[in-house]
């Protein structure tokens, strides 16, 4: 186990180096001269020169790369180009809003999709099962944007069931007032693809021998499906959910943007709009790192939940 973890961590190094190289290449070469981007349109040669010197852009390429590696290692990406706030502080202050929105969504969505998936597998092949699958296919073909635009217009603007947008200070206030509509819409968007995925996990289990044994000893179908099958189908579900947590922070960027929630997703959109390179660079590198770590955690949890799995 320890050897496995050590090896996985060791294997992350080249990937991480690649991510750093990719980001460096993107922002220093593809994007043109960063000094021009920072200086803006109205600038003279002296200003650009002084920015170049301050950013180390006059140094050879490997020195610039080394500066970037040091930034990654020390969590110090300097200040945002637009607000002047240190990037680390910027993310620390945006994280709570994102989590307030995404954690309830994650929990509710996982539970709802699991129950739906087990229920649909119970009646698999029936008219009910096929009908729901058709509805899900239709739901998945409608753009996320349409769900949000219509939901915000009808539920909040026309019928006044929720505030149209906004965000408060207290956790409870946010959870009870501002978060419900975004969570509801996020649920509407996520329920179709996730139920479909979880359904395949459940269907992988229903033909196993232990299910036949459980039925043979006279257990009710509900108990077989929701206790025996569900517990085994949970294993891939947990892995899936854990390894998707980093993406979750970004996944809600449309919701955060539409509802004016000061979270990380909205911050990234703003950064892209304003060419705020330090913010985008930092987010790309650290989310990639988090993705790798959470993938490893997902695999380890898989091992904990199912001792038959051999980690190689």
């Amino acid at each position, binding site marked *: 186990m320890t050897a496995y973890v050590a090896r996985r961590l060791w294997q992350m190094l080249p990937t991480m180096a690649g991510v750093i190289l990719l980001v460096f290449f993107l922002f220093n070469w593809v994007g043109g001269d960063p000094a021009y981007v920072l200086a803006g349109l109205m600038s003279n040669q002296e200003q650009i020169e002084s920015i170049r010197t301050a950013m180390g852009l006059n140094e050879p390429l490997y020195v610039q790369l080394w500066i970037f590696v040091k930034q990654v290692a020390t969590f110090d990406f300097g200040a945002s180009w637009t607000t002047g706030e240190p990037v680390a502080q910027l993310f620390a202050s945006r994280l709570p809003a994102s989590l307030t929105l995404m954690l309830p969504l994650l929990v509710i969505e996982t539970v709802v999709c699991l129950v739906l998936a087990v229920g649909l597998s119970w009646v698999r092949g029936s008219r009910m099962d096929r009908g729901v699958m058709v509805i899900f296919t239709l739901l998945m073909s409608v753009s996320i*944007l349409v769900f949000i635009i219509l939901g915000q217009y009808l539920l909040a603007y026309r019928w006044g069931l929720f505030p149209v947008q906004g965000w408060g200070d207290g956790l409870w206030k946010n959870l009870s007032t501002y978060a419900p509509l975004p969570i509801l819409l996020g649920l509407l968007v996520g329920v179709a693809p996730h139920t479909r995925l979880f359904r395949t996990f459940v269907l992988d289990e229903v033909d196993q021998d232990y299910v036949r044994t459980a039925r043979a000893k006279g257990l009710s179908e509900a108990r077989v499906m929701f206790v025996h099958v569900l517990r085994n189908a949970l294993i891939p579900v947990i892995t899936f959910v854990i390894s998707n947590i980093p993406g979750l922070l970004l996944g809600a960027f449309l919701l955060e943007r539409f509802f004016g929630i000061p979270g990380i997703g909205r911050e990234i959109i703003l950064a892209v709009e304003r060419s705020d390179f330090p913010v985008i660079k930092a987010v790309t590198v650290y989310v990639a790192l988090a993705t790798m770590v959470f993938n490893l955690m997902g695999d380890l949890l898989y091992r904990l939940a199912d001792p038959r799995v051999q980690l190689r």
Partner: protein
Amino acid sequence: MVFSKHPDNSVQASPGAWRLAWQRFSADRVGLWSACIVLWFLLLVALTATGLIAAEWEKEVAIGHAPPSWATSASSEGAGPTRPLPSVLDYTPSHADVTDPIAKEWAQAQQAVKPAGEQPNVLAAHLPMGADKWGRDVLSKTIKGAETSVLVGLAAALVATVLGAVLGAVSGWFGGWVDDLSNWLYNVFHAIPGILLILAIAAVLDTKGSAAVVVILGSTTWTGMYRLMRGEFMKHREREYVRAADAIGASNMRRMFVHILPNVSHVILVQYSLLTVACIKAEVILSYLGFGVPVDGVSWGTMLTEAQNDLLVGIWWQLLCATLAMSLFVTALSLLTDALRDALDPKVV
């Protein structure tokens, strides 16, 4: 070839793989219908691209926010009074203009627009699918938008497919350091969540437009294709027909792309179709956010942006039209993909 020339026709050539697939596909009614819808959209795209239909989508043909002709009564309370936009010609110089420093230039400018404006321009009060803020026909816009969205989706998916397939083929075929290098590249791209990579590339590209969207989506979505192709080529490398080709002296390239490629083409086709759906959805979001197709072009994404503002004053037809068109195409393409997979994968039958 030899058998077909046989005099008594006793031996018949067995049907090829594609023909068998077509036999299975033609029995699938859902697949056939979705293929019809997809082909219909592609026909529309071809016609708009050549300028045969919807060429004048930018022309003001109706009053601003003219409702659809089939929903006039329902929308009259919601839409509010519709009025033509104030024209530049309505302006008459007043006393104040004597002190206006640009009064002279203004009068000249007015003179210059007059001949064009004097033609009688009758604006319709209703259109089949209504009009947008500037009195443009929503139906024409949707068709023109389909051209952008579908072409960008197809092109981006093509870039990703070629990139992923070639890299996967080379990686699976040669193995060794080539494989290690490609795998490393795959891991790097796979570690960054797709949407973040898309936004990061959108941030550094200072050119906006359809070509930029194709580059952004093509360079970020190739990983799934790579993974599949690598596995397929590793599998086929050891097959007997490939060894036989090796024995008669076929080169690496010939074995990879003449012998193996046709045998994995069904995997590529299905994956291409899946990628197209994903790219169309992504294009709509990118254009909505303003990182995609510029405002002077039209795509389903820019239509949704306008529709969001329209909705606040009760104008819903642009949203309806863009949503219907996009959902219809995406559903049809998804169902077609399922049907193709069933028809092309012999294991299923």
